[in-house]
């Protein structure tokens, strides 16, 4: 029903291109892990290696303590939910969901019952006799989930399953995925490039770039205390102010921990009050986003910089006004290496 996954020093090359550079990752049983990164970062390759669709060039994959490096998808305790659902168009939903059980040799009556149970779980029991083409995208999505879970895999792999859905449906499916994962307790490994989706569903997020793991941690850790400039930028908008020594910066001396590099501040961590002063700044642009005002400030001391701040609804900033800005939760990261940029 559930198992842990160990990725030991896995490296994967496609001809001369190295898709994964010695990746190590430990996934606990029953965890909801999200592999997050831009396209080409190696997240789908890693997922395919866990699923057995690729054999890594080097390294080991252990699932539930057993070495699975050279075992094909057919014999692994994993199933995959594919990006394009990959339902069998000629079979009814019931037969689609029961397919994996049929392959294990379960009797017709037993697998039909189990399939109905799974379809019921995803709320499609009354459509069991329909064919996939009669369903909407979200419904096909659910059938794919039911089919992958019907064989009770130890690990479920999800390859950008929500990519094709519209925003509202995607948010709804995220909640459902999370709820179903809690209920069945299976280890979920989910691939996406949408950082909001990652934060909404993950127990732990693995941020990947150029075939390496940049940061691995809970959504709070990854968002609030990023380890690298790449994961800081990828998780959301970030103001970057170069600092050196004991807080020297273009804005003037700042009361931040000593360090050399870039001071990173999320827009919501800049405001009219806070832990330390950022000096005076002029408001150049503001727009109302419902939950907040998004404001562009030009610091008086450094007119070539722009700071983006999210001010609370109540604030009524006037364009051209000069105010003193404050920052919270400072994170100082070393300058980007050329590769991480």
């Amino acid at each position: 029903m559930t198992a842990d996954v160990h990725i030991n020093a896995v490296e994967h090359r496609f001809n001369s291109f190295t898709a994964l550079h010695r990746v190590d990752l430990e996934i606990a049983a029953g965890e909801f892990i999200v592999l997050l990164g831009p396209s080409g970062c190696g997240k789908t390759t890693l997922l395919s290696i866990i699923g057995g669709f690729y054999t890594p060039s080097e390294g080991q994959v252990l699932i539930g303590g057993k070495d699975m490096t050279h075992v094909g998808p057919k014999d692994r305790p994993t199933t995959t939910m594919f990006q394009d659902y990959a339902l069998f168009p000629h079979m009814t939903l019931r037969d689609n969901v029961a397919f994996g059980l049929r392959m294990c040799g379960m009797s017709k009556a037993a697998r039909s019952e189990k399939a109905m149970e799974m379809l019921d779980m995803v709320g499609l029991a009354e459509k069991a006799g329909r064919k996939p083409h009669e369903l909407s995208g979200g419904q096909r999505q659910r059938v794919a989930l039911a089919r992958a879970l019907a064989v009770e895999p130890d690990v479920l792999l999800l390859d950008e399953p929500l990519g094709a859905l519209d925003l509202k449906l995607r948010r709804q499916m995220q909640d459902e995925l999370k709820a179903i994962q809690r209920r069945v307790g299976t280890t979920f490994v989910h691939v996406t490039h949408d950082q909001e989706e990652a934060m909404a569903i993950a127990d732990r997020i693995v941020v990947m770039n150029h075939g390496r793991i940049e940061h691995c941690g809970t959504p709070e850790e990854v968002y609030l205390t990023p380890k690298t400039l790449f994961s800081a930028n990828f998780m959301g908008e970030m103001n970057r102010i170069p600092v050196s020594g004991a807080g020297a910066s273009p804005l003037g001396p700042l009361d931040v921990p000593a360090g050399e590099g870039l001071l990173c501040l999320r827009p919501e961590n800049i405001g009219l009050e806070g832990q330390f002063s950022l000096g005076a700044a002029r408001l150049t642009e503001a727009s109302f986003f419902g939950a907040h005002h998004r404001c562009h400030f030009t610091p008086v001391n450094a007119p070539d910089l722009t700071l983006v701040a999210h001010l609370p609804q109540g604030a009524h900033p006037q364009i051209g006004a000069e105010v003193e800005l404050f920052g919270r939760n400072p994170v100082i990261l070393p300058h980007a290496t050329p590769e991480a940029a």
Partner: protein
Amino acid sequence: MRYLSWVYLLALFTFILLPVVTLVVFSFQDGRLPVPPFKGVTFEWYAKVLSDRAMMEALLNSLIVALMSSLCALTLGFLAASGLARVILPGSALMRGALIAPMTVSYLIIALGLLQMFNQIGLRPSLLATGIGHVVINLPLCFAIIYAAIGEHQKSALKAARDLGAREWQVLWLVAAPMLMPSLAAAFFLAFTFSWDEFIIAFLLTRFDVTLPVEIWSMLRSGLSPETNAVGSLVFLVSIAIVVVLELTLFRKGSK
């Protein structure tokens, strides 16, 4: 302009269909020669054809050869297409090219090549030899049709089947074949009609048991007769029937 385009359309269809219409019309000729003037309607020639034992044997032979060779070509083409769609091997492009290449070679060359090769290995000209020849010409066709039908969507469904624990024969039989049914059927019917009509290979690779086109040809050597028209009309009828069946089942379904 409008008037002209109708004239053009009429001329076009006349050009295409006149030979066939003439053939069919004069197969009912009440006289010894299938040439104008038309002297009246008789079914005598059809009766003669249908009671001609050599002709009926040839018809049966043709059916058997067409059925067996197109089933063979279909199976081989299906296996080749699903194999090449599944994995990228070194030289995949070359293999695809080699599979399709016979399509570009004239039937005469293929027949000559086969004739020489069969001589070498001691296979005498026969229906079996002709059948093999028809597999050679129809395999590229079946492969091309089926390979083209396997898109990304089909590939990922096959991947999903393997992921869910299906063995390779189960993937092919339970998922690939039903999913590709329209193209399988199209490939089969096309291969069947091509084999059914094929003359050159059958002519060079048969001796005692012959197929229908070869039988018709030997009948033509003894001169024109409405009987040949009747046979031709029957062959045409079978081809039409296949096209109509295709239209009613496959293409209508496909357009839905």
